[in-house]
């Protein structure tokens, strides 16, 4: 029962965790039983954060109902929250930076020091909206999270053998400065809590396997309105500044992952708050793969180099690559290793979602043609067929679909398609699937033959129903209906989609 604690810092952390949750929903192989995510951010009204939170909550409900000991892979890995919380919120009451640091209570000497360190604009900065791309500010402020309750829960929960991973972006505010700070705290021995009591298991945590990913720029911000400190041009400069600081992390991290993209998308300029919701990007998916690489038991030897005293002797640096470059990526463009990881799970989960009726359609919303994910009744094969097919007989009825776990499952399926749609709309498109297709056999883009070809007998969705009817007898009667349902679809999609290099 080993765990991986993931600290996702800032918006990037939230988005990578979103991708990771999608991958785990699809049943991608994970080297640990349990993932414990923590998103660290000041700005909890961030839509990315709330989106990830809802997704993880749904995931937890579904994961609880699947059989841990069965063959089913969908939702197999457990995600648990520390104390039921996802956010490690950095809270304070001050509105402006100089108030926050308590300038009014400082001595004259300290006041003078402050004036020297920080510019007037910076001192007057409104705190609740992030650090507007000022990592230097971020560093100071972030120092206070070691008094947080969630951190205590983390310490209490930690066991020997658990691992730690930190997600952060190299650009931007919260992430860039937060990562080295967090790492420092994790490696500080004998940390005490607010009351002065030593945090539990801190010795283990000091020595725990630790990995990190630094997400390099993959988007640019459109021209900012006057008065904003967020400026893409300064991103690269800030990146350089942060990278030099990261040199200090060498031999402090077991495995250090880098990822970025030269082909950038541009996002609308938002400083944060409810507006900052960035569409999913393939880079985030690849970042999630880094996490899975870190816990992959086959990679232990290449990821970890420790001496006899359990000190890190060497940091392994890894970067993500694709096989062939193209602004439009399909499975064809990915390396064999990546394909082995994600082709089958994503395709299987996609088939599952399609069966339940989820696909992308064009609708006129507010006068504008919009692409949107909907459950289309005529494509809802389950709805049409469950009355007649033996696999569903007396098991998967109308009422069944209304049960909480299945509602959550379908919610995740809709979000999954949405996630894929967002990645398809980026400049660097990731389009492994034809999201508009309503057939069972033609939705894989590219040259790879992934889906079992139908024979003259069972075509399209009939092929799936036939397989469902075949596999239902192999699932255990003792399982709860929801668990059985998911396992059934896992078996069936495995039979129909079994890509080998």
């Amino acid at each position, binding site marked *: 029962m080993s765990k991986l604690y993931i600290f996702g810092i800032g918006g990037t952390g939230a988005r990578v965790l979103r991708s990771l949750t999608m991958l785990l929903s699809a049943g991608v192989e994970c080297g640990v039983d349990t993932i414990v995510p923590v998103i660290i951010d000041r700005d909890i009204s961030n839509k990315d954060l709330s989106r990830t939170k809802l997704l993880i909550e749904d995931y937890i409900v579904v994961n609880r109902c699947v059989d841990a000991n069965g063959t089913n892979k969908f939702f197999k890995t457990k995600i648990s929250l520390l104390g039921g919380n996802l956010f490690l919120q950095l809270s304070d009451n001050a509105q402006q930076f100089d108030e926050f640091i308590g300038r009014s209570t400082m001595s004259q000497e300290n006041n003078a020091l402050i004036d020297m360190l920080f510019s007037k604009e910076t001192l007057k900065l409104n705190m609740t909206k992030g650090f507007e791309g000022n990592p230097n500010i971020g560093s100071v402020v972030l120092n206070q999270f070691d008094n947080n309750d969630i951190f205590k829960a983390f310490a209490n929960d930690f066991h020997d053998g658990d691992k730690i991973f930190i997600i952060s972006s190299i650009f931007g505010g919260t992430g860039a400065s937060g990562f080295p700070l967090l790492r420092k705290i994790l490696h500080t021995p004998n940390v005490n809590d607010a009351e002065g009591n030593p945090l539990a298991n801190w010795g283990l945590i000091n020595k725990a396997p630790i990995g990190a990913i630094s997400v390099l720029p993959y988007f640019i911000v459109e021209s900012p309105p006057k008065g904003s400190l967020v400026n893409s041009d300064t991103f690269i400069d800030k990146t350089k500044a942060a990278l030099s600081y990261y040199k200090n992390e060498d031999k402090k991290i077991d495995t250090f992952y880098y990822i970025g993209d030269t082909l950038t998308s541009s996002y609308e300029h938002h400083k944060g708050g409810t507006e900052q919701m960035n569409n999913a990007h393939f880079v985030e998916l690849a970042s999630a793969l880094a996490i899975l690489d870190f816990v992959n038991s086959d990679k232990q030897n290449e990821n970890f180099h420790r001496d006899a005293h359990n000190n890190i002797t060497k940091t392994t640096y890894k970067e993500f690559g694709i096989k062939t470059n193209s602004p439009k990526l399909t499975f064809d463009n990915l390396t064999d290793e990546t394909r082995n990881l994600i082709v089958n799970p994503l395709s299987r989960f996609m088939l599952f979602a399609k069966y339940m009726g989820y696909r992308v359609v064009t609708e006129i919303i507010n006068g504008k043609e919009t692409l949107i994910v909907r459950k289309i009744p005529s494509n809802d094969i389950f709805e049409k067929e469950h009355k*007649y097919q*033996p696999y569903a*007989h007396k098991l998967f009825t109308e009422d069944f679909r209304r049960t909480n776990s299945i509602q959550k499952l379908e919610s995740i399926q809709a979000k999954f398609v949405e996630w894929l749609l967002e990645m398809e709309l980026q400049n660097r498109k990731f389009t492994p699937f034809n999201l508009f297709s309503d057939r069972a056999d033609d939705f894989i883009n590219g040259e790879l033959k992934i889906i079992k070809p139908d024979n003259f*007998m*069972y075509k399209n969705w*009939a092929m799936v*129903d036939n397989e469902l*009817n075949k596999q239902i007898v192999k699932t255990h009667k003792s399982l709860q209906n929801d668990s059985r349902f998911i396992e059934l679809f896992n078996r069936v999609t495995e039979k129909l989609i079994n890509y080998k290099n």
Partner: protein
Amino acid sequence: MGKIFGEIYCWFESLFGQDLAEYLWGYNCETQGYDSKNLFYTIGSITFGLSLLFVLAYYYLPLWGFNHPRTNRWWNWLIILIITGVINFIIGVSWTINDLLNGNIGDCLMYTRDADGNVVSQLIFKSDCWMFGVTNFIVSALFFIILSFILKWKSRNCKYSPI
């Protein structure tokens, strides 16, 4: 076995008449006994066999129309039942009409004659043969229904067809 089939057919004896029934039982005018071929057994076996064949096909043959997720509705089953019934109807009619027209049915079953040997009345008509066809349809349907409920349980796609 012949007796069982005969009993089943004779539930519907009023449809095709006792005289044709006697012929099918194998009544021999010469010996006044039932030592001719029991045609209820023969025709019954064919009807039973065809029903069995179609039932097995519907539930187990991997072919569109049979054991297929899109043709497992109750009315698909009904269509197959009707097809089987119609085939057996045709067999029932043609067999008996053939025997009737070829004079295979004994005279004592066909006609009542007076003291001089002239025909007083005819006992078996073509309409009886048609009605026997109808009976065979009904018997076929009965076999089909019973065999369906016995044999469908291992069918992958049609286990709950018709219910």
